[in-house]
């Protein structure tokens, strides 16, 4: 039997952070400039009492309705998050309880960022095609806003909060080939310090300093805040993403001409445009879904897929190339065959 994506949905917290608000206090950056450079018009931000599990529950409930799949049918939960409700217990266990998924189901969290969705698909495929599970709830839920300093424009302008839920199930099919796969994975831990929340984990539990420090661009943060070296990450993507795409195409024995839709992790528009041109992907195949959501980390790819399906840009039988890349450094690329009409509204 083979694994396939049946449906995808997402949930955005209701509070919106606009470019106008981000631009406050900045002489150089107007709301228009922010949109022009990042491609982001607004981001949704979780309130203090909204955690990743809360966003996840709402995304999953939407998915159950869309896919006409009751929670009782789910036998495995995979949750990707880097902002879990607790260090322990596992946030996926909380989801099982809150969603009314049977206690015979497996559940686990995995800690990845921008590459998380692709890895999640790989894990889901593995579980299904080895007969370990039949209906996987793959969830990505992230609240990076809770790490971000209000006075750090470099990240505040870019990141948004969201959760996305995908149903991956086993399916019988007469057509040859896989619906999910092949995959290309990659890791480079030498890039660890370029996208990091230095304090709060076990390495350094509490910060020594209490006052934010300004960097050379006037962005302020403490060591409890998210730090991103955008320039380093950019050069990382330039080195890594084109090669990952090439390797994936070789593994899939096809060329870009055979691919119908390309969805990259929606890091920021500037980076995406540059990568698209560098790799030679035609504009009409390349999905950009950033302006309303911002960079929602591991949710960007499933959100883009959901939007592309809804707008009719993704059709049944389409060959879709996904690439997630970023924090870690970690990257993953996968080919999927979109099977529309099974559950997507």
């Amino acid at each position: 039997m083979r694994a396939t994506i049946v449906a995808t949905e997402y949930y955005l917290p209701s509070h919106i952070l606009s470019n106008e608000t981000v631009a406050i206090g900045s002489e150089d950056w107007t709301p228009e400039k922010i949109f022009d450079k990042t491609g982001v018009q607004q981001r949704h931000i979780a309130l203090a009492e909204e955690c990743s599990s809360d966003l996840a529950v709402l995304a999953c409930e939407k998915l159950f309705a869309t896919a006409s799949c009751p929670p009782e049918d789910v036998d495995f939960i995979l949750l990707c998050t880097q902002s879990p409700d607790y260090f322990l217990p596992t946030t996926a266990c909380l989801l099982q309880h809150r969603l009314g998924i049977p206690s015979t189901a497996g559940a686990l969290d995995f800690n990845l960022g921008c590459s998380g969705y692709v890895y999640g698909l790989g894990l889901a495929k593995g579980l299904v095609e080895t007969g370990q599970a039949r209906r996987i709830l793959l969830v990505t839920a992230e609240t990076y806003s809770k790490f971000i300093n209000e006075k750090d424009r470099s990240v505040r302008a870019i990141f948004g909060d969201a959760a996305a839920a995908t149903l991956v199930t086993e399916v019988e099919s007469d057509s040859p080939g896989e619906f999910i796969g092949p995959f290309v994975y990659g890791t480079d831990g030498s890039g660890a310090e370029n996208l990091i929340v230095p304090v709060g984990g076990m390495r350094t539990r509490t910060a020594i300093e209490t006052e934010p420090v300004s960097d050379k661009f006037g962005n302020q943060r403490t060591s409890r805040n998210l730090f991103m070296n955008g320039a380093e990450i950019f050069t990382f993507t330039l080195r890594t993403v084109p090669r990952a795409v090439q390797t994936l195409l070789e593994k899939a024995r096809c060329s870009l001409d055979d691919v119908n839709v390309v969805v990259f992790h929606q890091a920021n528009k500037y980076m995406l445009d540059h990568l698209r041109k560098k790799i030679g992907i035609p504009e009409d195949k390349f999905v950009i879904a950033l302006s309303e959501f911002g960079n929602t980390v591991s949710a960007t790819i499933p959100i883009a897929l959901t939007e592309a399906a809804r707008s009719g840009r993704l059709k049944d039988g389409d060959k879709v190339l996904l690439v997630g890349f970023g924090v870690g450094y970690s990257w993953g690329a996968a080919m999927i065959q979109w099977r529309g009409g099974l559950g997507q509204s």
Partner: protein
Amino acid sequence: MKRSEFLLGLAETIEADISTMSESTVLRELPRWDSMRLLEVIAFVDEQLGIDLNANQVVNCETVGQLLDLVKDSLTA
């Protein structure tokens, strides 16, 4: 690529006035010299020269001249 072409493109990228830009132009004093601008310089160099700049090298450049030093071997007179 000719040095003069590169300088023209660079001036546009960093929003410097090409008529007054020189090797001693201080990058930090240019409009919107920030993390986004670094991306734009890196992208410009990648696109025009196919060079993979090390981001930390760019961040440590104080002047246009120091930026030029990073790529001068790929430029023709």
